[in-house]
Protein backbone atom coordinates (compact mmCIF):
# COMPACT_ATOMS: atom_id res chain seq x y z
CA UNK A 1 0.00 0.00 0.00
CA UNK A 2 1.47 3.33 -1.01
CA UNK A 3 1.79 5.70 2.03
CA UNK A 4 0.45 8.51 -0.15
CA UNK A 5 -3.02 7.11 0.49
CA UNK A 6 -2.94 8.89 3.83
CA UNK A 7 -2.65 12.18 1.93
CA UNK A 8 -5.66 11.29 -0.22
CA UNK A 9 -7.65 10.42 2.89
CA UNK A 10 -6.69 13.69 4.56
CA UNK A 11 -7.70 15.71 1.49
CA UNK A 12 -11.08 13.90 1.35
CA UNK A 13 -11.69 14.68 5.05
CA UNK A 14 -10.63 18.29 4.48
CA UNK A 15 -13.15 18.62 1.62
CA UNK A 16 -15.95 17.08 3.72
CA UNK A 17 -15.15 19.63 6.46
CA UNK A 18 -15.20 22.49 3.96
CA UNK A 19 -18.56 21.37 2.51
CA UNK A 20 -19.90 21.08 6.05
CA UNK A 21 -18.94 24.67 6.82
CA UNK A 22 -20.68 25.88 3.65
CA UNK A 23 -23.86 23.83 4.01
CA UNK A 24 -24.80 23.50 7.67
CA UNK A 25 -26.72 26.26 9.50
CA UNK A 26 -26.26 25.32 13.19
CA UNK A 27 -23.26 27.34 14.44
CA UNK A 28 -21.96 24.51 16.63
CA UNK A 29 -21.99 21.99 13.77
CA UNK A 30 -20.19 24.48 11.52
CA UNK A 31 -17.60 24.83 14.25
CA UNK A 32 -17.24 21.05 14.41
CA UNK A 33 -16.59 20.95 10.66
CA UNK A 34 -13.78 23.45 11.13
CA UNK A 35 -12.31 21.10 13.72
CA UNK A 36 -12.61 18.29 11.16
CA UNK A 37 -10.58 20.35 8.67
CA UNK A 38 -7.91 20.93 11.32
CA UNK A 39 -7.81 17.19 12.05
CA UNK A 40 -7.41 16.45 8.35
CA UNK A 41 -4.44 18.81 8.16
CA UNK A 42 -2.97 17.07 11.24
CA UNK A 43 -3.18 13.77 9.37
CA UNK A 44 -1.33 15.31 6.45
CA UNK A 45 1.38 16.63 8.80
CA UNK A 46 1.89 13.20 10.36
CA UNK A 47 2.03 11.53 6.94
CA UNK A 48 4.67 14.01 5.79
CA UNK A 49 6.63 13.44 9.01
CA UNK A 50 6.67 9.75 8.15
CA UNK A 51 7.54 10.28 4.47
CA UNK A 52 10.46 12.62 5.25
CA UNK A 53 11.56 10.70 8.33
CA UNK A 54 12.01 13.64 10.76
CA UNK A 55 9.79 14.26 13.74
CA UNK A 56 9.07 17.96 13.17
CA UNK A 57 5.87 17.02 11.34
CA UNK A 58 4.47 15.45 14.49
CA UNK A 59 5.57 18.38 16.66
CA UNK A 60 3.80 20.84 14.34
CA UNK A 61 0.69 18.63 14.41
CA UNK A 62 0.96 18.71 18.21
CA UNK A 63 1.01 22.54 18.23
CA UNK A 64 -1.88 22.69 15.72
CA UNK A 65 -3.89 20.53 18.13
CA UNK A 66 -3.09 22.80 21.09
CA UNK A 67 -3.95 26.03 19.28
CA UNK A 68 -7.16 24.46 17.89
CA UNK A 69 -8.21 23.63 21.46
CA UNK A 70 -7.69 27.27 22.51
CA UNK A 71 -9.66 28.39 19.44
CA UNK A 72 -12.58 26.08 20.35
CA UNK A 73 -12.72 27.69 23.80
CA UNK A 74 -13.20 31.15 22.35
CA UNK A 75 -15.48 30.07 19.49
CA UNK A 76 -17.88 28.31 21.86
CA UNK A 77 -17.80 31.27 24.25
CA UNK A 78 -19.04 33.48 21.40
CA UNK A 79 -21.74 30.96 20.43
CA UNK A 80 -22.85 30.75 24.08
CA UNK A 81 -23.13 34.56 24.27
CA UNK A 82 -25.20 34.62 21.08
CA UNK A 83 -27.47 31.91 22.46
CA UNK A 84 -27.93 33.70 25.75
CA UNK A 85 -28.95 36.96 24.07
CA UNK A 86 -30.85 35.66 21.07
CA UNK A 87 -32.09 32.16 22.12
CA UNK A 88 -30.92 30.62 18.81
CA UNK A 89 -27.64 29.09 17.73
CA UNK A 90 -28.26 29.53 14.03
CA UNK A 91 -25.52 30.97 11.84
CA UNK A 92 -27.62 33.88 10.54
CA UNK A 93 -27.91 35.82 13.80
CA UNK A 94 -24.37 36.86 14.80
CA UNK A 95 -24.91 40.26 13.17
CA UNK A 96 -27.30 40.95 16.04
CA UNK A 97 -24.34 40.99 18.44
CA UNK A 98 -23.21 44.31 17.02
CA UNK A 99 -24.20 47.19 19.32
Amino acid at each position, binding site marked *: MNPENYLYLSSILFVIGAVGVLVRRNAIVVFMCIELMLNASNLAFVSFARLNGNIDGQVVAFFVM*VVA*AAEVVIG*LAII*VTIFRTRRSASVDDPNLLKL
Partner: protein
Amino acid sequence: MNPIVPILFLGLLAFGFAAFSILAGSLSGPKRYSRVKLDAYECGIEPTPQPIGGGRFPVKYYLTAMLFILFDIEIVFLYPWAVAFDQLAIFGLIEMLLFILTLGVAYAYVWRRGGLEWD
Protein backbone atom coordinates in the same frame (compact mmCIF):
# COMPACT_ATOMS: atom_id res chain seq x y z
CA MET B 1 2.24 -1.80 15.52
CA ASN B 2 2.02 -5.06 17.40
CA PRO B 3 1.87 -3.63 20.98
CA ILE B 4 -1.53 -2.19 20.00
CA VAL B 5 -3.07 -5.49 18.78
CA PRO B 6 -3.58 -7.12 22.23
CA ILE B 7 -5.59 -4.05 23.28
CA LEU B 8 -7.90 -4.89 20.38
CA PHE B 9 -8.51 -8.37 21.89
CA LEU B 10 -9.52 -6.89 25.27
CA GLY B 11 -11.60 -4.20 23.56
CA LEU B 12 -13.51 -6.71 21.43
CA LEU B 13 -14.07 -8.91 24.49
CA ALA B 14 -15.42 -5.97 26.56
CA PHE B 15 -17.58 -4.66 23.68
CA GLY B 16 -18.96 -8.16 23.07
CA PHE B 17 -19.79 -8.55 26.75
CA ALA B 18 -21.51 -5.13 26.89
CA ALA B 19 -23.48 -5.63 23.66
CA PHE B 20 -24.48 -9.18 24.67
CA SER B 21 -25.71 -8.07 28.08
CA ILE B 22 -27.78 -5.24 26.54
CA LEU B 23 -29.32 -7.69 24.08
CA ALA B 24 -29.96 -10.21 26.89
CA GLY B 25 -31.44 -7.45 29.04
CA SER B 26 -34.01 -6.50 26.46
CA LEU B 27 -34.92 -10.14 25.68
CA SER B 28 -35.06 -11.56 29.18
CA GLY B 29 -37.48 -9.98 31.60
CA PRO B 30 -41.20 -9.20 31.34
CA LYS B 31 -42.71 -6.82 28.78
CA ARG B 32 -45.74 -5.15 30.36
CA TYR B 33 -46.42 -1.87 28.55
CA SER B 34 -47.95 1.03 30.50
CA ARG B 35 -47.75 4.68 29.50
CA VAL B 36 -46.99 5.95 32.98
CA LYS B 37 -44.03 3.60 33.26
CA LEU B 38 -42.37 5.23 30.26
CA ASP B 39 -42.60 8.79 31.68
CA ALA B 40 -39.49 10.45 33.01
CA TYR B 41 -38.97 9.67 36.71
CA GLU B 42 -39.31 12.80 38.92
CA CYS B 43 -39.34 11.41 42.46
CA GLY B 44 -42.70 9.71 41.97
CA ILE B 45 -44.78 12.74 40.91
CA GLU B 46 -45.84 13.54 37.38
CA PRO B 47 -43.03 14.98 35.26
CA THR B 48 -43.34 18.71 34.49
CA PRO B 49 -42.83 19.34 30.77
CA GLN B 50 -40.00 21.91 30.80
CA PRO B 51 -37.57 23.07 28.14
CA ILE B 52 -34.29 21.20 28.88
CA GLY B 53 -32.17 23.45 31.12
CA GLY B 54 -35.28 25.54 31.82
CA GLY B 55 -34.07 28.35 29.57
CA ARG B 56 -31.52 29.43 32.23
CA PHE B 57 -28.03 28.50 31.04
CA PRO B 58 -25.74 27.34 33.94
CA VAL B 59 -22.50 28.71 32.51
CA LYS B 60 -20.45 27.11 35.31
CA TYR B 61 -20.22 23.80 33.37
CA TYR B 62 -18.84 25.60 30.33
CA LEU B 63 -16.18 27.33 32.47
CA THR B 64 -15.19 24.05 34.12
CA ALA B 65 -14.83 22.32 30.75
CA MET B 66 -12.84 25.30 29.45
CA LEU B 67 -10.44 25.16 32.41
CA PHE B 68 -10.21 21.40 31.93
CA ILE B 69 -8.93 21.98 28.38
CA LEU B 70 -6.42 24.54 29.65
CA PHE B 71 -4.97 22.17 32.25
CA ASP B 72 -5.18 19.15 29.96
CA ILE B 73 -2.87 20.95 27.53
CA GLU B 74 -0.57 21.84 30.44
CA ILE B 75 -0.49 18.14 31.48
CA VAL B 76 0.25 17.05 27.92
CA PHE B 77 3.21 19.44 27.79
CA LEU B 78 4.45 18.43 31.26
CA TYR B 79 4.64 14.69 30.42
CA PRO B 80 7.33 14.72 27.68
CA TRP B 81 9.26 17.34 29.69
CA ALA B 82 9.19 15.11 32.81
CA VAL B 83 10.23 12.03 30.81
CA ALA B 84 13.18 13.77 29.11
CA PHE B 85 14.06 15.84 32.19
CA ASP B 86 17.63 14.61 32.60
CA GLN B 87 18.61 15.47 29.00
CA LEU B 88 16.97 18.91 29.22
CA ALA B 89 18.47 19.75 32.66
CA ILE B 90 18.50 23.38 33.85
CA PHE B 91 17.40 24.94 30.53
CA GLY B 92 14.35 22.67 30.44
CA LEU B 93 13.60 23.45 34.07
CA ILE B 94 13.55 27.24 33.59
CA GLU B 95 11.46 26.85 30.44
CA MET B 96 8.85 24.75 32.21
CA LEU B 97 8.75 26.98 35.30
CA LEU B 98 8.06 29.92 32.97
CA PHE B 99 5.28 27.90 31.29
CA ILE B 100 3.72 26.94 34.63
CA LEU B 101 3.97 30.55 35.84
CA THR B 102 2.27 31.97 32.74
CA LEU B 103 -0.53 29.43 33.05
CA GLY B 104 -0.64 30.26 36.75
CA VAL B 105 -1.49 33.84 35.71
CA ALA B 106 -4.50 32.56 33.75
CA TYR B 107 -5.49 30.34 36.68
CA ALA B 108 -5.16 33.25 39.17
CA TYR B 109 -7.24 35.49 36.90
CA VAL B 110 -10.05 32.95 36.66
CA TRP B 111 -9.85 32.37 40.43
CA ARG B 112 -9.92 36.07 41.26
CA ARG B 113 -12.85 36.73 38.87
CA GLY B 114 -14.80 33.93 40.61
CA GLY B 115 -14.84 31.44 37.77
CA LEU B 116 -14.17 28.60 40.21
CA GLU B 117 -17.04 29.34 42.61
CA TRP B 118 -19.87 26.84 42.52
CA ASP B 119 -23.03 28.09 44.22
